[in-house]
């Protein structure tokens, strides 16, 4: 068994737990950056035996884009709206943490029932990917500030990336790059939307949006 890959996977899930458990936006973004950085190294360890140039390239792009550029961008966004913490989440941090624990157990259960056509290099890869996806969902539904929902979306996306690196050999480089570009644009658009919400309504609580009427 590849101990280093296991360590990376477990570390990403733990960092996911940290993100879910914290309400301070700066900390969440920092941990998200660290998580993406570690995740970016996963393909290198996974395909250590038959390394090819584009695998290194994908890793590098993920590390730079998700590990450094996106956190910088999110930091810029919270500076711009001068917001420091998500004070009134719909689901409290403790409950979310507990639910994440249940989610981790559930994803291990689910993954043990699934059969994959490709050979999987670590049997905790699929469960950790599922757990990250569910944690991202929990952040998306549990928080009220748009910026923490963006963070939740990125955690979810990290989970999907973990799933996608299984198919790295079969998927052309172009598709991978397309996903990254998509994501980058999405974050950019969301950042701008957040700022516009903030400019128009003086706060960026998404709960308020449901009460808007014509």
């Amino acid at each position, binding site marked *: *068994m590849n*101990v280093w890959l*296991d*360590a990376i*996977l*477990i*570390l990403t*899930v*733990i960092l996911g*737990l940290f993100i879910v*458990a914290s309400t301070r936006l700066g900390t969440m973004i920092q941990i998200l950056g660290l998580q993406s950085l570690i995740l970016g190294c996963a393909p290198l360890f996974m395909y250590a035996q038959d390394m090819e140039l584009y695998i290194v390239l994908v890793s590098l792009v993920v590390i730079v884009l998700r590990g450094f550029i996106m956190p910088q961008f999110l930091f810029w966004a919270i500076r711009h709206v001068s917001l420091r913490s998500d004070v009134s989440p719909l689901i409290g*941090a*403790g409950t979310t*943490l*507990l639910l*994440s*624990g249940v989610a*981790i*157990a559930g994803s*291990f259960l689910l993954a*043990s029932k699934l059969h994959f056509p490709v050979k999987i290099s670590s*049997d*905790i890869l699929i*469960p950790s990917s599922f757990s990250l996806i569910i944690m991202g969902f929990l952040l998306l539904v549990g928080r009220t500030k748009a910026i923490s929902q963006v963070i939740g979306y990125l955690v979810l996306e990290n989970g999907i990336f973990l799933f996608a690196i299984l198919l790295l050999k079969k998927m052309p480089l172009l598709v991978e790059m397309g996903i990254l570009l998509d994501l980058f644009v999405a974050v950019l658009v969301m950042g701008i939307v957040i700022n516009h919400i903030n400019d128009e309504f003086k706060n960026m609580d998404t709960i308020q949006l449901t009460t808007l009427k014509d």
Partner: protein
Amino acid sequence: MNVLLLHLAILFVFPPLLLGSIGKTKAFFAGRIGPPLLQPYYDILKLMQKASVYSVTTNWIFRAAPMVSLAAVVSAGILMPVAGVKPPVQFGGDLILFVYLLALARFVIVLAALDTGSSFEGMGASREATFGCLSEITVFLNLTILALLSRSLSLSEIFLGGLSSSWLQVGPVLILVVVSFFLVLLVENSRIPIDDPETHLELTMIHEVMVLDHSGVDLAYILYGKAVKLFLFGTMLVSMMMTFRTQDLWVDTIFFFFEMIGFAILIGVVESTMARLRLNKVSFLLFSAFIFSIFGFIVILVRGAHP
């Protein structure tokens, strides 16, 4: 026989030195000289020479508690391998006895605190009991993982070589166990992010508030029992992390001393660099410890302990 004496000597003599090293580390961070390294020994000796004062509202529970508590902690120590030395008593399933002896020590102190009739001490007792039952489940889960990894239910087999191959096979799981155990250790021994062992006057303290009415020999017993408990938890943490042992007895013992001093310095660093958590955040920290160990447990179940 010699080995047995060595085990007992370390168990009885070493613990207060840990408190001294923590004090020195904290003093270093604060830029002070700090109390001498052996200060806890002086404190305990001084208290031994003093007479105890008993409130008229207390009965025999209050007088018995410090003795029962110390006895329980020391009996737990007799089950624990120290410095690669086999403990005097060992049998299959002694890890359950170990945890419950520590629980008994806590229980009698809580009873004694309630016995004083002071509402202040009752509050501390309530807190201690709450955090105690939250941390116990995590301790058990961690011990379950270790038992699965070493295929043994005896502390001496787990910590004397049972884990040596596990770091290579399931290292990440052991890291989870170590982190989770360290968090529980801070709670169990009322160290800083949870409780401040220095203060006596704040409403947020947990352990110290329960022993306010004890004095003289009783307080010495409680102080010493606390040191032994910290020593036992530290030994467990260190034996989890450092599975390598040379078979030479004296080299191992010297290594063990350095490891334990390193552990004390680590606690000192944590105490110097962190502020105390708000009381309602403590359960949150215990939740995280619990989830770490649950995660490790699930991975072990899926992967199997010996892949």
